[in-house]
């Protein structure tokens, strides 16, 4: 597979992750496009072999962390009633409520835990690849994943009022 084809094969998962991160479709596509352009311009830095996906996620992540999040210094408020945005197919009332609660719970997670939880659920990257993408040791990935999941569990169980924090 040539570089461009391989690059393109990673786009759907990059896009899914970017949308989950940004909760804004157009913004997510902009982010993915930036990431692809950067990957192309730094193609010489990529050593080939496996690892294109974590490399791309790392680029995407750096753009997100350094540029987008900084730009969004102010709080971004989630609409109170975002049920209309929930994916179709979740037609049962309970299922929709469950999804909405998960959405809120994710928004309450500390950012670094949210990254991991989303990467693991949405991208199929291995733990080591997640670690590469985020530039942290794999042990850190595991501990953040563990804490992130425990937080989600508690938010969803309605235990321990989550620390009120701004959605970044």
């Amino acid at each position, binding site marked *: 597979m040539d570089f461009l084809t391989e690059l393109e094969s990673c786009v759907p998962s990059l896009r899914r992750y970017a949308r*989950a991160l940004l909760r804004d479709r157009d913004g997510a596509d902009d982010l993915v496009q930036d990431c692809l352009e950067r990957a192309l311009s730094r193609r010489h830095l990529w050593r080939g072999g496996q690892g294109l996906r974590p490399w791309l996620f790392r680029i995407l992540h750096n753009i997100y962390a350094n540029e987008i999040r900084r730009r969004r210094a102010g709080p971004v408020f989630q609409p109170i009633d975002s049920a209309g945005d929930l994916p179709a197919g979740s037609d049962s009332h309970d299922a929709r409520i*469950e999804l909405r609660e998960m959405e809120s719970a994710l928004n309450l997670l500390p950012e670094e835990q949210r990254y991991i*939880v989303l990467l693991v659920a*949405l991208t199929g990257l291995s733990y080591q690849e997640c670690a590469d993408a985020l530039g942290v040791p794999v042990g850190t990935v595991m501990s953040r994943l*563990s804490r992130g999941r425990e937080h989600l569990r508690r938010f969803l169980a309605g235990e321990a009022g989550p620390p009120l924090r701004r959605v970044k």
Partner: protein
Amino acid sequence: MSAPPEPVGEADLHAHADDRLPPERAAFVAEWLTHHPEARQQVALWRCQNELIRQLHAEPPEPLPARLRPGMWALGRRQALGRLAVAAAVGLLAGGGAGWIGRGLVPPHDAEPYDLAREAARAHRDLAETLPLEAGPDGATRLLAWLAQELGHPVRVPDLSGVSLRLLGGRTVMNDRNRKAAQLVYEDPAGARFTLYLLWADWSAPPEFRFFRSGDVNLFYWPEDALRCMLMGPADPDHLLDLALATYDEMEKDRHTAVNHATP
């Protein structure tokens, strides 16, 4: 003799919930979980979290926009379309089957090309009963003027003599949504009819090529900004692709004169 398996730790449980364990280890952990209900519940909960997150961020499959297709950036537009078309044709050949088949890089819920292809194929079949307006000597120019008058905007008739298709004539066709399309009729040296169906829509569609089949007629669909183009005839996909690319090139030439891109 192999070493006894490592005891199951929390990392194993996460990896099991995430389907990240190698099969042998996964089997071992699964077996271990049958004796550890609490851990089993924990794993089930994590799986459920993953599932909810996936549902929350599930995307209906949709074609990637051109700006997210780096393979396209490096290619000229024509090459990009050619590449798409080949992918579409390969998809068809692999799929086989009879009747209406739409194959492309986009899923079937995207109905516009599908509906248009049906219209175009119907218009193609109707040709057997309707004689198109004769082109005759110098007819292309007259046909052009007539179509322009009928449609209310200029149309260019691509010259396909380069691929041995002779222009027979053309007509306008009213589609289901009360829009007039132009249907140009060509004939190959063996007397087989090919039609080019052109419809002007209100919006620009991203470049893509899609392949359809109806009976013994194959059809290629592609958009050119607001213009929707469909070429069909009794040719195998490879040959039809050549014809479609030739048509595309001819229309691309006309792009410089902008006549095919006037909006109604």
